[in-house]
């Protein structure tokens, strides 16, 4: 059975947490004691009926305020697939938590309140989803019960969302009218919206093809750790432990180590101490080479005839996530890319992206929390990268503040 990771996104109170609660409830994935706990908490909060959002809003402050603050992970399963659902907060203040959840998602469900249509936070989350290269987007037009289940209301929102989607690189888009509260078109087809003949939300989640989203072409392997047992029988053993980020490797493959440009051949691939024939994308293995060359954590092993770009000058889209210090040209950070870390300095903010129009804003001096921009930076050591849109695993990087050690920027290298 395979696994799909999806995130819910959209503006405050559009019903993201309720939708996840509903999905779990209707697929019978809420256990009896969990249900009792939610019922009890619903009563103490005077909510009247059962508030399914309480399933994911697990922190004390979230329950007190009736909002989501940080992402919650919930796990469920249908006969066809396993799911990791990630419930993101809608509040603009907590956008960085949404970015955290979205960075690993295969699919995003963007909720829109049928009464309000597309709003600023819908646009912001859609932009983030497209920058992060989330391959599949479902727009769930929610609270259809509050607009009399009107087809016209749905079509109007669908139209305005499609206009928005055209400006973004959203590859696969499905728009569905739902009511998370009543469970319409979530798992079961709605009886109040007979005009809708498309798929239910769950049916899209079960059928979308995740495998084709992986980069199976470009052999990339970031070295995490060097295994050297130094025992008598394994005296000369040197294994490079890491995860295949993209493509695949097999015994006998010619490779190159970056950034040092040394070449060699794969002598052996091991998993858990046993030899295996081939290692493909996302597998954690150990590679042994024929030549004794100097390799350490932070180096990348790549297929010889298919190398990434090696450079100290990098251009990237960035989501800025620090609420204490703005990003400014000239500031220095640590860039973490794969397993490599390098100091870097921000050369320039090329332009910022307007959240509403997606237009470029030139001549920006600094970025505040949640701003999105394109920046130019220079690293102290060369970085072996691919453009993010071609290779998510080898085009992603984070910026770390050197003094606070906090992760302050999400970079998608262009």
């Amino acid at each position: 059975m395979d696994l799909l990771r999806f995130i819910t996104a959209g503006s405050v109170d559009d019903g993201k947490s309720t939708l996840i609660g509903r999905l779990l409830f209707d697929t019978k994935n809420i256990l009896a004691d969990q249900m009792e706990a939610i019922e009890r908490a619903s009563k103490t909060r005077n909510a009247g009926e059962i508030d399914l959002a309480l399933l994911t809003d697990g922190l004390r402050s979230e329950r007190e305020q009736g909002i989501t603050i940080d992402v919650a992970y919930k796990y469920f399963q249908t006969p066809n697939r396993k799911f990791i659902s990630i419930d993101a907060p809608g509040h603009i203040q907590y956008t960085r938590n949404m970015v955290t959840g979205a960075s690993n998602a295969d699919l995003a469900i963007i909720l829109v309140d049928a009464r309000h249509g597309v709003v600023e936070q819908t646009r912001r989350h859609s932009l983030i989803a497209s920058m992060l290269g989330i391959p599949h987007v479902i727009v769930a037009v929610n609270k259809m019960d509050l607009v009399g289940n009107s087809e016209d209301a749905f079509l109007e929102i669908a139209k305005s969302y499609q206009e928005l989607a055209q400006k973004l690189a959203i590859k696969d888009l499905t728009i569905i009218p739902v009511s998370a509260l009543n469970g319409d078109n979530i798992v079961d087809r709605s009886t109040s919206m007979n005009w809708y003949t498309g798929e239910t939300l769950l049916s899209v989640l079960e059928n979308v093809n995740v495998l084709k989203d992986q980069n199976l072409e470009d052999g990339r392997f970031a070295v995490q750790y060097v295994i050297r047992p130094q025992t008598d029988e394994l005296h000369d053993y040197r294994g490079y432990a890491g995860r295949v980020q993209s493509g695949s490797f097999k015994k006998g493959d010619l490779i190159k180590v970056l950034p040092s440009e040394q070449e060699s051949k794969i002598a052996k691939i091991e998993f858990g101490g046993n030899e295996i024939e081939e290692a493909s994308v996302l597998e954690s293995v150990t590679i042994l080479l024929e030549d004794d060359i100097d390799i350490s954590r932070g180096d990348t092993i790549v297929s010889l005839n298919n190398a990434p770009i090696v450079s100290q000058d990098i251009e990237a889209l960035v989501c800025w996530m620090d609420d204490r210090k703005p990003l400014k040209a000239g500031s220095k950070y640590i860039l973490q890319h794969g397993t490599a870390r390098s100091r870097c300095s921000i050369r320039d903010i090329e332009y910022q992206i307007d959240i509403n129009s997606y237009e470029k804003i030139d001549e920006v001096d600094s970025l505040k929390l949640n701003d999105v921009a394109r920046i130019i930076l220079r690293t102290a050591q060369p970085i072996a990268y691919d453009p993010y849109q071609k290779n998510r695993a080898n085009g992603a990087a984070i910026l770390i503040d050197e003094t606070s050690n906090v992760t302050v920027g999400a970079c998608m290298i262009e």
Partner: protein
Amino acid sequence: MSISVNEASVGAEKKAPDYLDQLEAEAIYIMREVAGQFERPALLFSGGKDSITLVHLAQKAFAPGKIPFPLVHVDTGHNFIEAIEYRDELAKKIGAKLIVRYVEDTIKAKGLKEQTGKNASRNWLQTFTLLDTIEEFEFDACIGGARRDEEKARAKERIFSFRDEFGQWDPKRQRPELWNLFNGRIQKGENVRVFPISNWTELDVWAYLKREGIALPSIYFAHERELILRDGKLLNHTPVIESDPEDQIVTRQVRFRTVGDMTCTAAVESSAATLDEVIAEITVSRISERGETRIDDQQTEAAMEDRKKGGYF
């Protein structure tokens, strides 16, 4: 009508990887990040099925080498003997360094006051011993077997969970955690709790134990035992649990679904004697693991969150 753009239909030339393989690869990746990023990591080992899974994953991650960090156990003195024996045998078998620190010693050294009465437990005091052990060995990272499906506060926690110099978790200011780029940078005195099996469910753990042929302490399987029947829950009949006039002593066929401190871990009635039978029972169980067996979570609505803020795992 549904509106679809560019929905390409794709021939299945290559099969999607199985979810257990994916979870395993992710956990191994995380273990190796710990070894690569930290100077003095430790693996917190309790003898329970989740930490047994962690040790197995660590062995796979660093084979044919040894696990490059010690196993650490905070012993409340109220553990199941079967789990302690398993712990010692496993450490010996794999040649790992085992560090055990006792809550009893912390209580004496610090003059701490133990809870008394019916539901007295050392569960909360564990935190003091854990924080002292971290200080004693200057551990900068502690790997633990917590899973996000266990509890609603855990469902919110990062895989690399930053703790300040007092061991505290701040749920409102967690570090962003993007892709699989884990940021383990800290100042001296701070540390990171790392949860490689965050994304595993209880059933995933059981399925994995079965697939890998991993042995478990015998208390995980059905056996006859003398128990205290208290408030509808079955607790081990042992002197470490203070008796109560309402208690009934019974003999039942049970197994344990989680193995923690005896004072706050309840048994479930069961006849499941093999992994397959346990998996079959859990698959149809309508009650969650902690709901059925843990007494510590049920005291208040946000018990786990509060414990974590205080430095607990």
